[in-house]
């Protein structure tokens, strides 16, 4: 078993309005960051897990995202994975 650190990013699907992102965009414009075109606000998770291989860890994370971390009706997700430490 190896330890993995996953970084999971959940964000609204492009077809879904994101009032929080729009409000942040307005704020950035007011601060003078006039070049900002789009802000989409989402969620970020760091997950430590153990798995027999990177592939198994990825499968587990995919399930976690689909079952709980993201609502597939309105959200999309992606994650990256790094080996954190060796167990044993």
């Amino acid at each position, binding site marked *: 078993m190896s330890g993995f650190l996953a970084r999971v990013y959940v964000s609204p699907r492009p077809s879904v309005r994101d009032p*929080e992102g729009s409000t942040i965009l307005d704020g950035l414009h007011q601060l003078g960051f006039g070049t900002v075109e789009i802000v989409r606000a989402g969620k970020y998770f760091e997950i430590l897990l153990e798995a027999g291989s990177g592939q198994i860890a990825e499968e587990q994370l995919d399930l976690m995202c689909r079952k709980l971390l993201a609502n597939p009706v309105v959200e999309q997700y992606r994650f990256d994975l790094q080996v954190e430490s060796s167990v044993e």
Partner: protein
Amino acid sequence: MKVGIIVFPGTNCERDTARAIEAVGSQPRLLWHTATEPLSGCDAVVLPGGFAHGDALRAGAIARFSPIMPRVMEFADSGRPVMGICNGFQVLVECGLLPGALLRNDSLQFRAEWVHCRVEAPVWGLQPGAMLRLPVAHGMGNYFPDASVPKPDVVLRYCDAHGRVTPQSNPNGSFDNIAGISNGNVLGLMPHPERAISDVLGSVDGSYVFQALVRELVAA
């Protein structure tokens, strides 16, 4: 008639809901979320409002994994009435008993105010065209439809005092001014009918929803 009221940690409208059910002559039964016995003793089930599990992650996202939820799903599959009010509606959407999603209000504000709703579909004997004055109190009531599944019946739409469905009368940015939907025997609505069951509370229109639920039970 016995109506089960599901109580999650953070639910806070169960007593008002129980009172509303008593007021239409039925017996409420509070059911804690860890219960795993079948709900066969109930004639209907209500998921009341509140903030189950503190709305962690998304409203209703954690509550849907409660031990009692498979029983609620079975109960709904058996064709008996299930009603979700506000946070209960959010739980029904998260668990898939109702399609779509409830997003953050477009104003980003928690909206607690009186609204008018127009009945749109004859669910449980509700009369289309009937106007209800009900309170809302939510931060995530912005209904978003799921285009990949069959459309639910729209049961309630936000409207103005004259029954006109206008953007101004929509408190949360909900698609098509949707305030409530149903999928057969499962009904979800954002307004709180249990908070509008006497003149002292400002409206009696909420009783109409609970009377409809009881009528449905009598008819069954």
